[in-house]
C-alpha cells in the first residue's frame, strides 16, 4: 500500500495507542466519580488537556474537548447572535460553510489563484455589523496556508475602531486548524484568534476527538447540556482515552516538527520532479504558501475519479479534493473559487503525504500515476 491521503486521515501513532489503552481497562473510571482511582483518571485527563493546550500556547481550561473538528466548528458558531453578519473564506470545509449558511447574512471572502484569502476583499466586506469571521489555517483541498496573523490584524483594527466609536457589536475570529497542526507553529496569541478548532485525526491521534480553544473574551453556548462537564460547555462523560492519545500524538508531532517539514519538502520536490512531464499537468497552489505535505495536481481532460480507481487497483490511495465532497458528486467549492474550469476540477487530485511515505514510496507512487495517466490518455485517444 502507498497511502497518499494523510489530509483525510492519519494512522494512530504507536505511542498514542499505547498511552490510551489503559483507559479502556485498568483506568476505565468515570472522571467525575469521587473515589481516588477515578480522581486519578480525572487528573490524567486534565493533564492531557494541558498538554494539548500547551502546544497552542494556551491552558487546559481554555479547551473544550469535542468529538472532532465538525463539532468544534459547530460550537464555535454557537456564539452567533440572531441576525449576525458572518464572513468566511471561499475555501472553507463544508462544516464552516453549512454553519455560515444558517446565519442571517454571510459573505465569502474571495481568494487568489493560489487559494489565499485576499486581504483587500476582507477589508471591503468587513462592516460595522460583522460579528464573526471564520477562516481556516490551511485549506483542506489545496494545502494553502492562510495569512491568519494579517487577517487578525485587520480584525484588531476594526475592533479598535468600534471601541473608539462606542459601538457594542462584538467581532470574533475563529480559525479551523484541522489541517496544519503538527507541521505549523500554531499559537493562539500569535495567530490572534478567539476560537481555534483542533482535530486529533489528522495528527496521528484517534478519530472522534477534537477540541475548541475558547478565548477568555468569548462566550459560547453549549450544544449539549447535561452533567456540566467541560465547565458546562460540553456535557457528556469525558473521552479520556482519546484525549490522552490526542495529547501524546500532538506532542510527538510537535517534537519532530522541523524534521518532518524538511523531510516532506524533499519528498514533495521529488514527487514534482517525477510528475512534471505528465501532459498538461498543473501543480495547484504556490509552494511558498502551501503545507509541505500537500501536492494538489490537475490533469485537465482526465477524470480524476477514474485515476483514483485505477490507482486503488495498484494499491495507491489518494483523493479528489476533499474526500467528503467527492463521493456525493458535488463540485469542489474550493477549486471553483480559485478559478478552475469544470474540466480542470474534474481532473484534480489531492496528494497528501505524511509519516507513511518515504522517498522510495514516492518514486513508486509517481511511476504508478504516470502509467495510469498514460493508459487513460491512450484509452481516450482511441
Amino acid at each position, binding site marked *: 500500500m502507498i497511502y497518499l491521503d494523510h489530509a483525510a486521515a492519519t494512522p494512530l501513532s504507536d505511542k498514542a495507542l499505547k498511552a490510551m489503552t489503559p483507559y479502556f481497562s485498568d483506568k476505565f473510571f468515570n472522571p467525575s466519580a469521587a473515589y481516588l482511582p477515578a480522581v486519578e483518571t480525572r487528573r490524567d485527563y486534565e493533564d492531557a488537556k494541558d498538554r494539548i493546550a500547551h502546544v497552542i500556547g494556551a491552558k487546559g481550561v481554555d479547551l473544550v474537548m469535542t468529538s472532532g473538528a465538525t463539532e468544534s466548528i459547530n460550537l464555535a458558531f454557537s456564539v452567533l447572535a440572531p441576525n449576525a453578519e458572518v464572513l468566511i473564506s471561499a475555501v472553507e470545509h463544508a462544516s464552516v460553510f453549512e454553519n455560515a449558511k444558517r446565519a442571517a447574512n454571510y459573505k465569502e471572502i474571495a481568494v487568489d489563484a493560489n487559494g489565499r484569502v485576499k486581504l483587500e476583499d476582507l477589508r471591503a466586506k468587513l462592516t460595522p455589523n460583522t460579528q464573526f469571521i471564520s477562516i481556516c489555517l490551511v485549506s483542506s483541498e489545496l494545502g494553502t496556508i492562510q495569512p491568519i496573523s494579517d487577517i487578525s490584524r485587520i480584525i484588531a483594527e476594526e475592533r479598535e475602531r468600534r471601541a473608539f466609536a462606542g459601538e457594542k457589536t462584538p467581532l470574533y475570529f475563529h480559525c479551523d486548524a484541522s489541517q496544519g497542526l503538527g507541521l505549523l507553529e500554531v499559537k493562539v496569541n500569535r495567530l490572534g484568534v478567539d476560537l481555534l478548532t483542533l482535530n486529533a485525526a489528522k495528527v496521528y491521534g484517534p478519530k472522534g476527538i477534537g477540541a475548541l480553544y475558547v478565548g477568555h473574551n468569548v462566550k459560547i453556548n453549549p450544544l449539549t447540556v447535561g452533567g456540566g462537564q467541560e465547565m458546562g460547555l460540553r456535557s457528556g462523560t469525558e473521552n479520556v482515552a482519546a484525549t490522552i492519545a490526542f495529547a501524546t500524538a500532538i506532542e510527538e508531532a510537535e517534537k519532530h516538527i522541523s524534521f518532518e517539514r524538511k523531510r516532506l519538502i524533499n519528498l514533495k520536490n521529488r514527487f514534482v520532479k517525477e510528475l512534471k512531464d505528465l501532459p498538461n499537468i498543473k501543480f495547484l497552489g504556490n509552494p511558498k504558501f502551501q503545507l509541505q505535505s500537500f501536492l494538489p495536481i490537475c490533469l485537465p481532460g482526465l477524470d480524476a*475519479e477514474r485515476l483514483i*480507481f485505477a490507482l486503488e487497483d495498484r494499491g495507491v490511495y489518494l483523493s479528489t479534493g476533499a474526500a467528503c465532497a467527492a463521493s456525493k458528486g458535488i463540485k469542489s467549492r474550493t477549486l471553483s473559487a480559485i478559478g478552475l474550469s469544470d474540466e480542470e476540477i474534474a481532473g484534480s487530485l489531492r496528494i497528501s503525504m505524511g509519516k507513511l511515505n518515504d522517498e522510495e514510496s514516492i518514486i513508486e507512487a509517481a511511476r504508478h500515476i504516470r502509467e495510469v495517466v498514460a493508459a487513460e490518455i491512450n*484509452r481516450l485517444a482511441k
Partner: protein
Amino acid sequence: MKVFLGMSGGVDSAVSAHLLKEQGHEVVGVYMKNWSKNLPGMKCPWAEDLADAKRVAVKLGIDFRVFDFEQEYKQKVVDYMLAEYQKGNTPNPDIMCNQEIKFKLFAETAFEQGAEAIATGHYAKTDGKNLLMARDDNKDQTYFLYRISADIIPRTIFPVGDMIKPDVKALAEKLGYSVARKAESMGVCFVGEANMRDFLAEFVETQPGEIRELETNEKLGVHDGAIFYTLGQRHGLNLKAGLPYYVVKKDMAQNIVYVSRNLNSLSLWTDKIQLKDIIIRGDNDGQNLQARIRHRAPLVAASLNRETGELTFAEQQKSLTPGQSVVLYRDNICLGGGIIA
C-alpha cells in the same frame, strides 16, 4: 459492436461488462441514476453503487457514463406505483422500471449516443427475436422483463443469461471485483419489499380503518391504512391469537380490510382471472401456455382468451393480487403477460 451496458454496481452487471469486452465489443458502462433520496430508515446507496460500477469500468478500461433519470423514474415508476397502491392494487415497480426506464429511456439515450446494442446484467436470454428464460432457473428474471417491447429484443444482450449465479460470483471473485460479495440489491432501488410500508408512509397520507372478518362482517381490529395490505397477507395484522387470518379483500373507498381464517375462502382461490394491459409478442392464439403468477413461482398451464383478456388456469391459484403481473410462456419463450385487473 458498440454496446451500452447498464451497470448497477452489482456483480451481475460487473461480470457482464467483462464478458462483453472479452467478446470483442466496445463497451460503454452506464450507471442509471434513478433515485438518490434518503428516507427515514432507508439510506439510498446510489453514490456507492455508482462508485462500484465505475470501479469495474476502470478496471476493464471501458468508457463509463452516468445517465440521470431521476425525474423520469419518479414520474413513470414511483408515481405509477403510488397511484396503484392508492387504488388498492399491489403493483410491481421493477416491471415498470424495465418497461419505461431500462429498456426504453436508457435504450433510446444509448442509441442517441451511438450504441448499436444495449445490455444489462439480467438473467434472461434472447434468440435475436424472442425473450427467453435464463439458463439459471433459480435466477430467471424474465418475470420482470415481460413488458419490454419486441423492437428492443433484437438489440439487447444479456451476457449472464447463459450462466448460473454461483458461476457469475466465482468469476467476479476470480477477476478481483470488489462487488463479488456485495449483497444483492432488489426492488425499487433500495426500497425492497421489507421497506415498502415505510416508503408508502412517506409519500401517501393514510387513515386508520377497520379490519373485518369476511364471513361475519365482525370488526376484529384496526389497521393503519388499507394501502399497506396485500391479498393473501397473513402477518402484521395484530389480531387475536388462534388460527391465522388472511387478507382476502380490501375496500379502498371505505378503508376496510377483510380477513378470513378460511384458507379455502373463495376470495383467495380462483382459476380464472381478468388481465389488463396485456402485452403479447408475436402471433399467438393464447392456447397451451404456461403462466407464472409471481417471480420464481412454478409455471402452471393456462390459456388466454385473446378477445376478453380472461386467463384460465388448469388448476386453482391462491392470492392473485390485483396489480401484480401474470407472465406467459410457451416452452422457454417469454411471450408477454398482463396485469391482474
